[in-house]
């Protein structure tokens, strides 16, 4: 085999491999089932609470974030991201069983956070361009979906907006430059 043909073969195999992988990520696995989300609402709730836990301010559970996530993933997301989410739930459950020998929901707060950190490290590259390409080709990863949906759901819920953030329904005037008061929280968007 000449050098040239082997390069060609390698390139060809690489391209076919990428295509198959893309196809697999897109359609090749589990069928999406909205019922699965509802059956796992407790898991989703615990995941969201691990992202934004209750402190002196309300957490994701109190703010009803799980219902928001189920609604958005179930009725608003594209199929590719729906499938990614369902698959992510299964993966994190499997990971929890292997690492701690119990369900995610039964783990301690520290364990839950450490699992989420593990998932986040796994998908984020040091190179922003790689992250961008990944996102463009495959959509958001499970952990990005979970984090972004939890933040959105929390910050736009009544409890999150009015108690977690600083809420100003009708400001009435604009004060352009004022001292930051101690414990000042960011403005809710409304």
């Amino acid at each position, binding site marked *: 085999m000449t050098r040239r043909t082997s390069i060609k073969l390698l390139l060809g195999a690489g391209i076919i491999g990428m295509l198959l992988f893309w196809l697999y990520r897109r359609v090749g696995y589990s069928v999406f089932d909205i019922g699965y989300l509802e059956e796992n609402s407790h898991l989703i709730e615990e995941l969201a609470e691990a992202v934004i836990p209750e402190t002196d301010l309300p957490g994701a559970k109190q703010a009803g974030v799980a219902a928001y996530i189920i609604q958005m993933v179930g009725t*608003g997301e594209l199929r590719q*991201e729906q499938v990614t989410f369902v698959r992510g739930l299964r993966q994190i459950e499997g990971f929890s069983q292997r690492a701690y020998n119990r369900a995610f929901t039964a783990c301690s707060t520290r364990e839950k956070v450490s699992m989420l950190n593990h998932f*986040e490290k796994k998908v984020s590259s040091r190179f922003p361009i790689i992250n961008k390409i990944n996102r463009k080709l495959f959509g958001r990863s499970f952990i990005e979906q979970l984090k972004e949906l939890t933040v*959105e759901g929390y*910050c736009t819920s*009544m409890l999150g907006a009015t108690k977690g953030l600083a809420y100003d329904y009708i400001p009435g005037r604009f004060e352009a430059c004022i001292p930051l008061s101690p414990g000042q929280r960011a*403005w809710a968007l409304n």
Partner: protein
Amino acid sequence: MDTIRYDAIVIGSGISGGWAAKELCEKGLRTLLLDRGRHVEHVQDYPTAMSNSWDMPNRGFNTPLYRQSNPVQSLFSNETDRQFFVADDEHPYIQETPFNWVRGYQTGGRSLVWGRQCYRWSDLDFAANEKEGVAVDWPIRYRDLERWYDYVERFIGVSGKAEHLPQLPDGQYLPAMELNCIEEHMASTLKKRYDDRILTIARVANLTRGWKHRGPCMYRNQCSRGCPFGGYFSSNSATIPSALATGNLTLRPFSVVTEIIYDDSLKKATGVRITDTVDKKQYEYFARVIFVNASTIATTAILLNSKSARFPDGLGNDSGQLGHNLMDHHSSSGAYGTHEGFQDRYYKGRRPCGFLIPRFQNLGKGSAEKFLRGYNFQGEGKRLGWEDQASSLRGFGKTFKQQLLTPGPWSVWMAGWGECLPYFNNTVKLSIVHKDQWDVPTVSINFSFKENEQMMKKHIQTTAVEMLENAGFKHIEPFDYQHPGGTTVHEMGTARMGRDPKTSVLNDVNQVHAVKNVFVTDGSCMTSSGCQNPSLTYMALTARACHFAVTSMKKNEL
């Protein structure tokens, strides 16, 4: 309909059509105002105006699924305001090249959702074509429009600050809104480091005090939902109520104008033919003068579709220029940065505007740039909030939550709004094969930015980065979103004004050269694009043309 004969017909009730209706009615003309969309009554038809995020099914967002089925509409609107934007699939158009045509089919049109920036043009803009030998000369200069700018600003109410710049004339302003800490810091940096540019608060049609029974602004920054306080100018809140108050206005929504009727023997337009979108029947209405204010692309489509023995290629199209020279500002490139200072400062209230760095290139002094014309910067300073930080903050749990809910570092985002030259090949045409549900030929758009705009976009990035560096910003990122035409929603041209009927469609008072009782005073009349947000100029041109039309009618010249 109890009468089909009026003194005047105005096609389109958006920002310029609303003005035409108000002016003509106030001057005593019985006026029919047509709009193709539904009626939107000020305040009562703003269903989301007082909603909180949690009151809405998707918390105000576009879901990915919704975005997929409405790619153009969802770029410009979301669950809070999409009732004022047409859905993509209901009103198709042909994109020969990518072009975002954003439309609002309702009483008030896009005046409900406009950006409210109000900048005057100067002779730097009006004389540019002539000076450089580009396209054709504007048939007017600043002195022709100055009093009409005054007149319009006094009615709509514009907050802003006089800056005494020859390239951006001052107007009649209500008290200006204030810059926040980081914007003040940018402003003082520019003052120290540059002698050719300043940073000022945006000049906007948001009311800083009560004005003509409207406002003041409540600083909610939810303008595009419609304002129950009348805090900003729209046809719905201001011009249409004024027109109705005269008793001379008939407002007819659900009326798609299919063509303007031209009488070959009288040598003038006699009226319009419409399709009623409710009963699907055709109606004809007649009047002495017709104002076409359907918005740039739609106006030209109506003229192109108005064919007669005299005008086989569209009403008033002797020059062959109708449908050509489409323009839109580019606003894709700029830079973004964060600043480590002012950690102990914040703001209260949601100011409905940002800042402006008026044009400072090619002003005739100093060295000329490689590109023609110029750009201004529009931008905003803020402390990052949860919406900015959700995807960049690492980690989970208590620390993450603490960071997320605390005001982040100060940031400035700014982009260059740049002039687009009039190119003959940037066109609006009617499809020969495709028709819409009203049996009107579908609009087909072919548009691209060219070398001059691309050079300007590079320059914008460089100067934006340099200014942010000089002001001590960190993590500075230049950007070029490469948005296609239409994205700034400043469509202009396609029925340009000019001195010569052989090379332009409209004369110096916006009359169709060859059909004197038809006036076009929306964005389609623009001979060049300047870099200023154009609505204020449309309004001033409209008021001026109405004055001319009524004066001529009284003299029996029309």
